[in-house]
């Protein structure tokens, strides 16, 4: 029993509730949200370190021993993502202070950011499939509100699509849970793993696992990403950055958890399917990223390519590849937030999203330009930056497993990522400036500092990879050896 395990979810949840009552006091909301996000970061880092000494921590709600009750399980993989979520949200809050505007701040913007974080952290920590569904819904309902907040026409229209797709995927989730419960009679993830190892993963269970694959693919944007570019490009910059950094990652996390812990007996079917879907995702995403002239669309398609690349690691399923995926996952949360912020800032400065209408921005805003350059290099995987380690490990794992086609597509898509961003860089930042001194919009510090912080994080993660190597290898070890997780949950 470790009551502290619930803190990364309960702090944001309580903060959200308190912030609802602080509606008229914008200053108080800001101070309170910063204090509580710092507390979340601190608790998460403490937990991450404690796992290294005490092993996997768990909390049985109400004292019901697993497999009967619901529970939270904190292992290295989950906690690494919780820490990254908290840090990314903290920095994005700073950007929100200077950009979101008073109308949003008075309309419950901060509470819903915190509810979103509570849902995301809950999804990472839960050890029970139905609880995962509930946390998904908490996260999705807050995201529905955040995407429509402001009520511009395009937001409303795009969100209808987003909400109905997610209702449908929640339906599939419940369907899969119902059939799984009918078949094996439990929903505790560790217990499921034991039961399925006992009875063997027959065709029926494989079909159920494919339904789970569909559900998580819809959330993660693996192959079924058609809804993503529209809904990620309509809300305000901060919200888009929050979505790009967090929402798809939860789907990816669930996929890793389910297909390494529960349905790992038939890799010929499920993991092959993931591999094929990842390949098509990367190809489709690359085509989208180079086809559009709209900055927001290009950035959204970059999210999709990264999803495909991370899941190459799961499709290959060797310990090295999983390590690579975890590094890349953390890197991607940071760098996608930065990319969305930069794109949003560019649109704010020029008033247009079309790349052919922008030019020479680097003359007016040199720091912004070089930050974009840094982001581009980091996403393409140039060595000292954070994208490099993930790509190397995923590549190494793919070679070990002999999946050369996936490897080829993965690395070719990286070149197309570089090309698509280079196109933005050359068109928008290079060349003659078209902004004359009179209508030069000043770039406020509040918008620039968060971008710089993210830039420092990507450099720091690249140089400091050794610092998190311990946690990442522990996380990959737990994922590849389900017994570790089962022992931690079902012992006593």
């Amino acid at each position: 029993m470790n009551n502290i395990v619930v803190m990364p979810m309960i702090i944001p949840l309580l903060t959200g509730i308190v912030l609802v009552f602080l509606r008229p006091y914008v200053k108080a909301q800001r101070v309170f949200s910063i204090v509580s996000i710092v507390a979340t970061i601190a608790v998460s880092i403490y937990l991450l370190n404690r796992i290294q000494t005490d092993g996997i921590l768990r909390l049985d709600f109400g004292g019901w021993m697993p497999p009967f009750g619901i529970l939270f399980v904190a292992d290295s993989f989950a906690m690494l993502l919780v820490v990254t979520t908290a840090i990314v949200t903290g920095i994005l809050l700073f950007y929100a202070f200077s950009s979101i505007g008073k109308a949003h701040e008075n309309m419950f913007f901060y509470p819903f950011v915190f509810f979103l974080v509570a849902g995301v952290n809950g999804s990472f920590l839960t050890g029970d499939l139905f609880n995962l569904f509930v946390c998904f819904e908490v996260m999705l309902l807050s995201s529905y509100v955040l995407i429509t907040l402001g009520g511009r026409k395009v937001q409303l229209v795009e969100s209808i699509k987003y909400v109905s797709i997610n209702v449908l995927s929640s339906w599939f989730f419940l369907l899969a849970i119902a059939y799984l419960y009918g078949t094996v009679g439990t929903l505790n993830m560790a217990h499921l793993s034991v039961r399925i190892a006992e009875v063997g993963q027959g065709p029926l269970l494989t079909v159920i696992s494919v339904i789970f694959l569909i559900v998580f693919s819809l959330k993660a944007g693996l192959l079924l990403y058609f809804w993503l570019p529209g809904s990620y490009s309509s809300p305000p910059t901060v919200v888009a950055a929050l979505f790009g950094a967090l929402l798809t990652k939860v789907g990816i996390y669930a996929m890793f958890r389910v297909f390494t812990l529960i349905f790992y007996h038939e890799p010929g079917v499920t993991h092959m399917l993931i591999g094929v879907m990842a390949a098509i995702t990367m190809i489709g995403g690359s085509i989208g990223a180079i086809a559009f002239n709209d900055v927001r669309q290009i950035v959204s398609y970059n999210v999709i390519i990264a999803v495909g690349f991370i899941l190459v690691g799961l499709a290959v399923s060797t310990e090295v590849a999983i390590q690579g995926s975890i590094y890349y996952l953390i890197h991607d949360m940071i760098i996608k937030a930065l990319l969305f912020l930069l794109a949003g800032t560019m649109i704010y400065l020029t008033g247009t999203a079309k790349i052919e209408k922008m030019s020479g921005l680097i003359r007016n805003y040199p720091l912004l330009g070089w930050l974009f350059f840094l982001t581009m290099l980091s996403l393409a995987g140039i060595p000292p930056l954070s994208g490099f380690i993930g790509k190397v490990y995923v590549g190494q794992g793919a070679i070990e497993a002999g999946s050369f086609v996936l490897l080829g597509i993965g690395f070719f898509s990286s070149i197309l990522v570089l090309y698509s961003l280079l196109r933005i860089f050359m068109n928008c930042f290079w060349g003659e400036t078209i902004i004359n001194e009179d209508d030069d919009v000043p770039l406020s510090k509040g918008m620039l500092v968060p971008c710089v912080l993210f830039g420092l994080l990507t450099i720091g993660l690249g140089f400091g990879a050794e610092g998190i190597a311990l946690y990442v290898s522990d996380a990959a070890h737990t994922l590849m050896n389900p017994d570790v997780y089962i022992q931690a949950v079902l012992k006593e």
Partner: protein
Amino acid sequence: METLITILVGVLVTVAVYLLLSRNLIRVILGTAILSHAVHLLLMTMGGLKKGSVPLLGEEAESYVDALPQALILTAIVISFAVTAFLLVLAYRTYKETGLDDLDALRGFEDE
């Protein structure tokens, strides 16, 4: 009993899919509501249906109903209620802003 409920679920899903594929926004929302009811019934059925028993009668009870699916449905109903309420408000606001409730007309909508 189980077979009967399963057929009922099938009918509900058919109705829901028909409504979801229509062009009218309100029909789509009703479709999602019916769809979630269908899956709630399925959850209940998968736990096994027994006549005349209550979930918990103490340790010596001869027959009892599995309480877990009922707990699951309770949660799922609350969530689907919230999502349906949100969707209705969303549809109302969209109609107020754009004057459209036809999904074909809303397709590819841009305001810039």
